[in-house]
């Protein structure tokens, strides 16, 4: 789950990572009287908001509220702006980059730091990104700060500040089950290193132990959210063949195969390991809401009972009055009974994936 900048910065403050002074405003009137200059930043879970006009400077309360009103009416890359962050404007002398993430190949936390901050890290050349693989049994100790400070060119007090930021950021990373904590840019302002932005991603599987975090709507379509809530791994795609399969790998392979046959999947739906008529039947609810032209069901039942799955498919066909073509691949325990039941109900059933998809292609081409 991605956190908004203001939520990430609240965690930074909690763990002693310096941030600019500021607060979140959900409407223009939330902005309070101030002296000097303020920056008004759109709160959206996407990059590139500066270029889209989502970051503005104001030198009076009236101007700040006017700008906030404009920004709150914006949509940035399809994301509606619901809040702005109002912060003191920093004098920026230099911008740096630092992040901690989980590195899959070393199976360890990885610190990345660069003297070239304020730009997309992907555009920074590799030799300008300093990496440190953290041994989770040791954690981030002061020596890690010394190693990276030297590479970054920080000496004296700045090295101390940088070390503290690394140690505190790592503490946050571990205690809040983060997949990523990123400060870009980390700015040098009047002798202080300050986190001018925050990107924090929390592992969704750990949310049960972080009740203090508000749940942000994920970047999902309403139909995806609805299907996920019902327990199905579901992703909308832009084709016209509805897909129900079991297992994430097999479901992906089914979508790939459809494409290679010139057919376009409308969705990814992983039924999971199921032996239930209702779970099978209800899966059709979400596929049907996506309005496909035909439905392919691909079940390789290891221990799944195919007659149960067949009952679920037939129940769905009756309950939802499905008239579009349904082609089913059914393999596993009681597969012959399952396929026989389907055929008796006018549903094409096959023992292997290839013949099922070839049949589907034949039907769809015939109907054109």
């Amino acid at each position, binding site marked *: 789950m991605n956190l908004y900048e203001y939520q990430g910065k609240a965690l930074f403050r909690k763990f002693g990572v310096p941030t600019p002074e500021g607060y979140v405003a959900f409407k223009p009137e939330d902005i309070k009287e101030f002296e000097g200059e303020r920056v008004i930043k759109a709160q959206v879970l996407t990059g590139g908001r500066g270029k889209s006009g989502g970051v503005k400077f104001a030198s009076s309360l009236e101007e700040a509220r006017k700008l906030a009103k404009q920004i709150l009416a914006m949509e940035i890359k399809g994301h509606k702006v619901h809040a702005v962050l109002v912060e003191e404007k920093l004098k920026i002398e230099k911008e740096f980059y630092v992040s901690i993430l989980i590195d899959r190949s070393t199976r360890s936390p990885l610190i990345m730091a660069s003297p070239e901050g304020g730009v997309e890290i*992907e555009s920074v050349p590799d030799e300008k990104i300093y990496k440190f693989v953290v041994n989770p049994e040791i954690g981030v100790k002061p020596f890690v700060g010394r190693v990276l400070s030297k590479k970054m060119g920080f000496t004296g007090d700045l090295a101390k500040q940088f070390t503290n930021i690394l140690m505190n950021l790592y503490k946050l990373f571990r205690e809040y*089950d983060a997949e990523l904590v990123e400060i870009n840019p980390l700015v040098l302002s009047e002798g202080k290193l300050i986190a001018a932005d925050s990107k924090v991603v929390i592992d969704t*599987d750990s949310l049960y132990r972080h009740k203090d975090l508000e749940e942000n709507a994920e970047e999902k379509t309403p139909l995806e959210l609805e299907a996920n809530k019902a327990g199905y791994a579901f992703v909308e795609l832009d084709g016209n063949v509805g897909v129900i399969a*079991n297992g994430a*790998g097999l*479901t992906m*392979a089914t979508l*790939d195969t459809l494409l290679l046959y010139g057919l376009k999947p409308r969705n990814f739906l992983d039924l999971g390991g199921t032996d239930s008529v209702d779970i099978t039947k209800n899966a059709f609810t979400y596929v049907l809401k996506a309005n496909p032209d035909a439905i392919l069901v691909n079940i390789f039942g290891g221990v799944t009972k195919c007659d149960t799955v067949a009952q679920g498919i037939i129940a769905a066909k009756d309950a939802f009055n499905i008239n579009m073509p349904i082609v089913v691949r059914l393999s596993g325990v009681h597969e012959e009974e399952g396929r026989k039941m389907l055929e008796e109900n006018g549903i094409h059933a096959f023992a292997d994936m290839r013949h099922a998809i070839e049949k589907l292609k034949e039907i769809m081409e015939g109907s054109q």
Partner: protein
Amino acid sequence: MSVIIDENTKIIVQGITGHQGSFHSGEMIKFGAKVVAGVTPGKGGMKVHDVPVYDTVEEAMIHEPDATMITVPAPFVKDAAFEAMYNGIRVVYILTEKVPLHDALDIVSYARSHGHVVIGPNGPGITVPGKTKMGIMPNHIFKKGTVAVASRSGTLTYEIVNALTLNGYGQSTVIGLGGDRITGLNFVDVLELFEKDEDTEAIVLVGEIGGTAEEEAAEYIKKNVSKPVVAYIAGRSAPPGKRMGHAGAIITRGKGTAESKIKAFNEAGVPVAEFPWEIPDALKKVYK
């Protein structure tokens, strides 16, 4: 010889009294696995499939287990895995899905620095046809033979093993690495084992989008693997930024695409099948 476990491996099941634990222990016993004990706190003294159940791993150690299968709910996996490793159990297989990433990190890093092998989390386990099985792979699809299979998925593994069996290719060892971002074993680890394994003559890798495990495997194969390898990659059609069911199957920031993995394998001389059912044909061209 076989990989990681064999017919003499004594297995305990943590969470044996649960629905998954009890069903799959039964299937494992039918396959020939030596399931010597189960552990469920508070259920000590029970029996499941005639296997004695204990409250703690410490009590179950009288059976001298070498391996454990963990089927407890996700919030309790870390505790269960550390309980097993503390008691000296060498192989820890975690069936459970949705294990918090940082818990997997702690388990795997401890295991790697203390000589334990972790399989999973969120994988179907390991099967050595004709000898033993620890996990949930369906018994009837296997045939004893010389092809080793390693995969990041579950059902797709069964699909491919089934195709191998139907085409006369038996298997030496089949390992499901798990669908999460942090897993105890990755392709390079198992390639090393398969290369050394006398029972293995050819290798099938079933990869998917996300991460760089396949690219690292391709590099490793170039330098260290003499046995023929063929591969399948799932997720060619997946859009970036969308998690395709598995936590690990996600293309972020342009990394982890199917194209990159297929290219890496091809450069290492590893044929990549377009369709899952083409794996036996691909194997025929490089093996026998």
